């Protein structure tokens, strides 16, 4: 099948059975690949009520039809499973080079099923596929394991692996690849760890077939030319995602001390240019990327190397913890990578604990003697391994903010900054209604990847609540995840401002099927409704209450910074949801209406 590896690989870890089946053409037609394949297999194959950490859950690893081809940033890999953090849909995106290698090995998705009786790693060298003993790797850090496997197998192998956090069931453990790229959110690493799979090691040496080679090469060149001609290329290459640290600080969107404010008095020492000058060693790109956002760094104070920190990490474990030194942030980032936990959720959980401590809800006896004030770097450096090992206070924080707050009680639920059980990523949304709605409705919980609407808020009026704004969020929720479906990066469009219309000719030349953006948006809408129906199926009573933001964003205006005194009203929050449900064809409780499911061809699948 043109544009595809051509096979789905199933690995039953319980029995050790490994089997390939051809990728169904109708699956490619209706769900395209990547995130679409992940959502489909999850809904179809993981039984209702499955324990996220049990043998019935599956980890579905999918490339897309653009992955591994000459397309800017064609290195996006989708990881889907039932989330141990939220109990609903988890879909995490990984950059780097793994997804290209999956395609070169003749695969589209790898589905890990069951639970291995002992630690293993999955070895794939084209058609040679084996489960190998991983006893000597178990317990080791993710960066250490990647290096060990590369040394043993050779540089051509691409590695994805988990750290001790995943082995120990931290609910937001990640999957590491390429020394610092992660499938970070929702506990996809936790599921891999529960399955006793320490790593994947993949090499493929096959060519990916395309429908029209000449048209593909022309379309590819047009995409690269557009990127290289963009005047936004050089500044983006220089700073990557850290470009927005100063902007967020200036507009009141930089999460500060558990999102109690959106501007940080120590922010300037975290800005992109400071980091570039002080610690960045190398620019680091994903597969085929002309505009590498990855900044690989070395800290002088700690003597460690780390990819990043990128913006989300700077926000969540820098300003949100009251930490103002980029070397400290980089070191905490390194510990999260090596120990195998998501920097965003870890930052959110620790910020919550710091607020509890400062308010006297958590005592020094409960923190194991840690003086858990905002800004205490040593305390955070101590806590990351504790979380990964589930020791001391780490055992509570490893559960994620929502569970931790429910366990602690005493009013601490009010400052658990999460939606659907997922910690909010690094945009403060006291006064940015489109971004607030994006977090409320993202299909994994409070993550920015589905709709990054904060610049739009600033453009049209940050407090504005109307149908156009809601329509913009929905449009973003269709366009941006489409890139994760196709297996390529969205940032050439978002950050270099290249024309979206450059993609359909490339996709058509590769797959042999003409699709307009309107067609692609329809596929995205189908996937969006399927993930919604997954929540409906898995979470008893699921509905509107799950889309509500943390109280902080409608009841507690910041006391400092440029958004001081500003807050969205609860009425406006509800108005946002009413408009959103109406435009999506969902009922007042946020459930897709039967006619919506029918229009999208999902009625039989979800019946």
């Amino acid at each position: 099948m043109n544009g595809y590896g051509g096979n789905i690989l199933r690995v039953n870890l319980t029995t050790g059975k490994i089997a390939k089946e051809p990728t169904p053409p109708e699956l490619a037609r209706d769900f395209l690949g990547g995130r679409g394949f992940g959502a489909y297999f999850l809904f179809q194959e993981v039984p209702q009520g499955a324990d996220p950490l049990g043998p019935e859950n599956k980890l579905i690893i999918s490339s897309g039809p653009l992955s591994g081809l000459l397309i800017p940033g064609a290195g996006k890999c989708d990881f889907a499973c039932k989330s141990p953090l939220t109990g609903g849909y988890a879909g995490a995106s990984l950059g780097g080079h793994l997804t290209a290698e999956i395609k070169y090995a003749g695969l589209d998705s790898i589905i890990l099923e069951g639970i291995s009786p002992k630690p293993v790693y999955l070895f794939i060298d084209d058609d040679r596929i084996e489960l190998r003993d991983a006893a000597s790797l178990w317990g080791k850090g993710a960066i250490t394991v990647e290096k060990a496997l590369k040394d043993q197998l050779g540089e051509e192998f691409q590695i994805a692996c988990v750290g001790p956090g995943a082995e120990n069931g931290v609910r937001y453990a990640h999957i590491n690849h390429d020394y610092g790229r992660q499938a970070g959110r929702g506990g996809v690493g936790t599921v891999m760890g529960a399955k006793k799979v320490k790593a994947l090691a993949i090499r493929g040496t096959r060519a990916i077939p395309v429908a029209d080679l000449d048209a593909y090469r022309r379309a590819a060149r047009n995409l690269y030319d557009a990127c290289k001609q963009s005047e936004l290329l050089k500044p983006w290459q220089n700073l990557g995602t850290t470009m927005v640290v100063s902007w967020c600080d200036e507009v009141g969107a930089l999460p500060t001390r558990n999102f109690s404010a959106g501007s940080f008095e120590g922010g300037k020492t975290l800005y992109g240019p400071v980091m570039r000058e002080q610690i960045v060693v190398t620019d680091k790109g994903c597969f085929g990327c002309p505009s590498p956002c990855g900044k690989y760094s070395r800290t002088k104070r700690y003597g460690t190397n780390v990819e990043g920190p990128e913006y989300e990490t700077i926000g969540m474990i820098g300003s949100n913890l009251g930490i103002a030194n980029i070397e400290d942030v980089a070191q905490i980032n390194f510990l999260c990578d090596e120990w195998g936990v998501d920097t965003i959720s870890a930052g959110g959980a620790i910020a919550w604990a710091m607020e509890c401590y400062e308010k006297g809800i958590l005592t020094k006896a409960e923190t194991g003697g840690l003086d858990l004030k905002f800004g205490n770097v040593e305390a955070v450096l101590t806590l990351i391994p504790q979380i990964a090992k589930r020791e001391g206070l780490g055992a509570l924080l490893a559960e994620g903010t929502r569970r931790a707050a429910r366990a602690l009680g005493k009013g601490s639920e009010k400052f658990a900054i999460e939606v659907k059980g997922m910690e909010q990523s690094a945009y403060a949304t006291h006064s940015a209604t489109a971004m607030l709605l994006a977090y409320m409705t993202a299909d994994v919980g409070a993550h920015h990847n589905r709709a990054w609407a904060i610049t739009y808020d600033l453009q049209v009026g940050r407090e504005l609540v109307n149908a156009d704004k809601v329509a913009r969020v929905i449009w973003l929720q269709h366009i941006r995840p489409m890139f994760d479906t196709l297996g390529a990066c969205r940032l050439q469009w978002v950050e270099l401002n290249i024309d979206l219309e450059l993609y359909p000719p490339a996709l058509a030349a590769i797959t042999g099927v003409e699709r307009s953006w309107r067609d692609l948006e329809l596929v995205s809408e189908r996937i969006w409704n399927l993930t919604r129906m997954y929540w409906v199926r898995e979470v008893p009573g699921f509905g509107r209450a799950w889309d509500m933001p943390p109280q902080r964003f409608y009841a507690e205006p910041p006391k400092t910074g440029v958004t001081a005194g500003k807050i969205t009203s609860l009425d406006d929050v509800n108005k946002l949801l009413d408009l959103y449900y109406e435009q999506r064809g969902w009922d007042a409780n946020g459930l897709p209406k039967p006619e919506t499911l029918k229009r999208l061809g999902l009625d039989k699948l979800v019946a």
Partner: protein
Amino acid sequence: MLRLYAESAKCSGCRACLVACSLNLFQENNPKKAALAILAHFPTPGTYEVKVCTQCGECAAVCPTGAIKQNARGAYYVDFAECTLCEACVPVCPENVMFVRAELAPAAWKCDLCGDCVAVCGTDVLRIGEIEAKA
């Protein structure tokens, strides 16, 4: 005389150049069949090293069948029909960018200076220029 130059410090390891190269040489999407190489030195020191053909001609000098010829651009290339996979060219290449992998292709391959890698490199690592006299 022209050759390809690489400034490794600017490389971000994306491998677009490798895919562009395999598309030119073999009309295939397959970076394992590229005529330049990126060596990744991670996690320490965290740098990439790009190896490219200098068009020194050592490979052509030792080829027993005369399969390595010069094209209109003055670049040495492998005439696939005349290569016997004897591998004599591989050890003499000073940059390790003379490739023989019988499981992947029925002939040796090397850079023919098509320039497609330069066209897709977003960080200006690669350029084609006159061969500079050795100091």
